[in-house]
């Protein structure tokens, strides 16, 4: 396990990665972190500052200067702003005399030279002589290399009393199978489930659990990054965030040191999930969205089904990332402090919008849903695109193609959407047996969601086409919509059980207004949505994440926003 942690530490970058981990580790070790990396740029050479006792030693002020990877000659003093020696000089000459909080003025100080890997021999003499020269009665030096940090991680975060051996094994298996992401994620899911399934009676234990989640996903991500295949990390980060939310729910809105730490950690997990998603989309997907068939071809399909399944999956992922970016912008607006962050967030959101549009144009398989549950990805994509009214025309043409194609293929008994979900069944779809079509189209959420958007945005032709499909092709089909129920809060995030209620036989044969009235009346009647913790505390993308990840329909409540804008 130690080797795994060392590999992981060595791969971490300095900013927002190694320093973020260190902060959590120090907190877990019982130290009070009074200067955090997230608060902005480093303060006169100090990346993290903490106070407390480590392993029974007298209490000290620990000042960390953090470098990523191995520490070599080029990191010592090569004229770069991030070099170690100038940072140490700044700590001694500026930070300690002028910036150290008054309450620690008389406490001993240990300056910790922190790096994720090893110290190379070429710089050893420089460091030792610097330490000898600047060591005083009050100021001492220590080296926190990969070895030492991994020891502390094992001791404070992953020791057997905290994380049982079977979890270690699952993590190792998950890492070993990174090139087969589905298998890797299967092991990882078991690991996460075993952490989150525990009954936590103490807040401290709960904090430890989500720190473990955070650490595990970080380890997986760093290994994925090395392997140049972040698929497992992508899925694992979604699982981690959803399970972490399940664990932290009791602390939401609570004051207190532990609760605050818990909230900070879930925020860190969310940020990490965003980072992984951004990494995946920005590096692997978005560069190809504007090239004809590039993504379709990248799926290296055995057959058209592979292309179809993967493209809708990716569509859902970009749409969800877009919704997170939109949410982030909404969160920023009241403060409106940092124009740069706002501009960058806007840029990212717009990039997601244009990527979705390009992706659909250049990968026409996205006009042909095969599976009912692809309605989830379609709903996410439209919900995101529709945040900008300029996209309505585009949404219309996409849905028009989709509905037209579905109608034609229903008539011709070709690959029409069905509610089969198993790969081997979909391979053989459609069949010519009598009654087959009726059997695999007994229920639909796809058409009702499209009809809802059509009614909301005034796409009369599409609404009428769906009425025609229902009337002529699918009279037997139960057009339905799904709503959360009183058990949803318990099961939504970790998908621990079936939950929710289905509104059957939505009245597609009626006028658009009557159709919408009934759908949104049910939203009014059903208060369970508002009671979902993610909604109550303003983290609505968590619900959409759970819907995408666990393949649950998007609650129609999310579509209500478009009712008021039209």
């Amino acid at each position, binding site marked *: 396990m130690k080797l795994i942690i060392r590999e992981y530490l060595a791969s971490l970058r300095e900013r927002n990665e190694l320093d973020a981990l260190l902060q959590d580790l120090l907190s877990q070790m019982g130290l009070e972190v009074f200067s955090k990396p997230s608060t902005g740029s480093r303060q006169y050479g100090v990346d993290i500052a903490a106070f407390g006792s480590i392993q029974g030693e007298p209490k000290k002020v620990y000042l960390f200067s953090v470098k990523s990877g191995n520490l070599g000659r080029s990191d010592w003093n090569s004229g770069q702003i991030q070099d170690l020696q100038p940072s140490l000089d700044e700590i001694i000459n500026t930070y300690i005399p002028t910036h150290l909080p008054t309450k620690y003025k008389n406490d001993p100080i240990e300056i910790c030279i922190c790096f994720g890997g090893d110290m190379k021999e070429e710089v050893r003499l420089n460091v030792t002589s610097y330490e000898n020269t600047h060591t005083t009665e009050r100021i001492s030096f220590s080296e926190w290399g990969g070895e030492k940090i991994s020891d502390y991680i094992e001791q404070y975060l992953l020791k057997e009393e905290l994380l049982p051996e079977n979890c270690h094994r699952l993590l190792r298996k998950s890492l070993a199978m990174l090139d087969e992401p*589905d298998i890797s994620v299967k092991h990882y899911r078991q690991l996460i489930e075993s952490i989150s399934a525990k009954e936590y009676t103490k807040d401290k234990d709960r904090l430890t659990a989500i720190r473990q989640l955070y650490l595990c996903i970080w380890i997986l991500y760093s290994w994925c990054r090395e392997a140049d*295949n972040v698929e497992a990390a992508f899925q694992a980060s979604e699982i981690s965030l959803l399970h972490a939310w399940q664990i932290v729910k009791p602390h939401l809105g609570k004051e207190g040191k532990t609760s605050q730490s818990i909230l900070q950690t879930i925020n860190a997990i969310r940020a990490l999930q965003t980072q992984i998603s951004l990494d995946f989309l920005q590096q692997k997907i978005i560069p190809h969205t504007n090239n004809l068939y590039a993504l*379709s071809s990248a799926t*290296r399909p055995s057959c*058209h089904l*592979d292309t179809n*399944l993967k493209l809708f999956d990716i569509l859902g992922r970009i749409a969800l990332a877009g919704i997170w970016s939109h949410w982030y912008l909404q969160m920023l607006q009241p403060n409106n402090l940092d124009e740069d962050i706002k501009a960058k967030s806007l840029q990212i959101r717009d990039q997601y919008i244009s990527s979705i549009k390009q992706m659909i144009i250049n990968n026409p398989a996205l006009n042909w849903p095969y599976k009912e549950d692809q309605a989830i990805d379609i709903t996410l994509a439209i919900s995101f695109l529709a945040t900008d009214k300029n996209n309505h025309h585009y949404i219309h043409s996409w849905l028009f193609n989709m509905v037209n194609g579905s109608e034609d293929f229903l008539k011709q008994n*070709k690959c029409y959407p069905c509610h089969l979900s198993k790969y*081997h069944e979909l391979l*053989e779809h459609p069949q010519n047996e009598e009654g087959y079509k009726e059997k695999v189209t007994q229920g639909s959420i796809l058409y009702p969601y499209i009809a809802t958007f059509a009614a909301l945005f005034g796409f009369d032709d599409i609404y009428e086409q769906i009425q025609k499909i229902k009337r002529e092709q699918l009279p037997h089909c139960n057009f339905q919509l799904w709503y959360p129920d009183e058990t949803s809060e318990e099961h939504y995030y970790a998908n621990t059980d079936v939950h929710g209620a289905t509104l059957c036989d939505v009245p597609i044969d009626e006028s658009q207004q009557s159709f919408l009235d009934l759908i949104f009346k049910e939203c009014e009647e059903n208060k369970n949505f508002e009671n979902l913790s993610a909604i109550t505390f303003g983290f609505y993308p968590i619900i959409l994440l759970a819907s995408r990840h666990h393949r649950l329909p998007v609650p129609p409540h999310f579509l209500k926003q478009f009712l008021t804008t039209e």
Partner: protein
Amino acid sequence: MSNIKKQLIASSKAGNFLVKIFTFYSQEKNDQKDLEKHLIDLHNTGKINIIKEFHKLKNIDEAYNFFKTREILEPVLPKISAPANTVMECVKHLISEAGNDMAADTLIAPFIEFMAADEKRADEVLNISLEEIDEKFDSITPAILAGAKLNLKVYASKTIELSQHSNIQIQTRAIHAIGRIDYNKDNDLIVNAITAIESSISNNFNELLFATVLRSSYSLCNHNSVLDKRVAKIFKTVLKNHNDHILHIASSILGFENNIPNPIVKLLLGALTHTKPQNKGTLLHIDCGLKKLLEKNQAKEIDNVIIFLEKILLKESNISITQFISVQQEIICNAKILNKIVTKWLLSKKSRLGKAASDLVSNISQQPLHLSVDRKKLPKLDNDTYLFLAKKACGWFFFQPVSAVSFILSLLDKAPENERQKIAEIVFNPLLISYPGSVKEYLESMLPNASKIQAPIISTVIKRFENYHNELEKAQKTRELIPSVAHREIYHRYRTRMMEQSMQEAEKDSLFSHLVTKKLILYGNKAINYFKLNPEEIGNRQEMELQSHSLSVEVPTMEYLNSNGSEYIRLNFQLEGCTS
């Protein structure tokens, strides 16, 4: 008396005469002429009643071959003396035993010769036949033909008389005989015959009679071309009836007669458009007839064929151009006709003709057909005609991409400038994208000889494709998007199952698999066998090297990347602007 004769007499007495003569006839060392002589002699001297013996011949006995044995009687029959009625009964029996076999009627000619040897025989047979009409066996025609050989005028006159008989069976058989009598260029007799035929169809319709009229009148027309017009008139009357039997006779005339006068060809083709898809024999005859017309390579004939094909294909959805195999091959071998038909049918705005063009081009040979637009067919000043044709070619020839591209490129030179770019777009997407192998190879091979208009367009398309391909290669490095190992395994199993099923299906109808015995070799790439001529010897060693056979097919990449969309585009291209 020779030994053979003795054996034959003994066998007749023993009741195995037929087996004996079959055995004798089958042995190569025996002179068959000798056997004939012996049989004639034994019969005419009253030692064996051959007619009686052959009356015992059955099509079920395994001790001899029915047809081979019956064949022995054919040269013997004209030279024996026997009562005409018993011979007739024997012949009737032997023809009846033969059933529907193509060789059933080979005994008729010797029977005619037998009757022609003595006028009484013909008279006797005719009289019996007129008194007792046998529904299944026509003995009237042979009797008339035999009689006409001896006394043409009398029998021609008798036949004409019978052709107006109140019994339709007798009338039909007489009409049949009219067509088969050798008139010895006697124009008066021929004119009388044609008049009799004309008269026979003036009354009520009878399917069999009318069909016979068609055949007989055409025979008379062969005797005397002056009668062409009258025969054509008869054809016109008869072919108003689209009865299966009549159409079948019409098809056999078209298929097997040479130098049919043009008016008659037109009448035949006109009527034959009503052929039903289930009448495979009729369609086969039509195929032969059309091939002959095409072989003449004359504009009028070619047009007649094209018009016929269009009519029949538009009329009957269950008839396909692929049923006219000879015609298809003839068209394919003649680039001018092929291009003319393809252009005409793509322009027709009729989906069935588009489909027929597609079937025509999808020939069974591996070599792709290179097509070119027939410019004479292009209407002048018609907007979007070139783009329309390019779309049709792409839609209908999508699975013959080189044919599609060759046709589309041939449009470029004359296409208006504003349509060229759109046409080039079709070459790029979906054709080149779908077939990066064959289409790219074709485009590159075309480049050195391309026209000034074509060359830059082809270059641009190839360059664009290379950029496209580079982008695909970059994207394919995204390992995150590869299907899971579970899905890959499921697909592999599915494909293996599908392959096995289609292999089994193919083997069911495979002639080859019925001819050979299969042996599975588990290891190695040679088979060693010892062939023994007798059980005692070790045998000759034979070593057989295994040969590998492979067939590669370029599956359009669109089938993977955008299966539904590709099909949708194809359908749109096929049906866009069609009126039916």
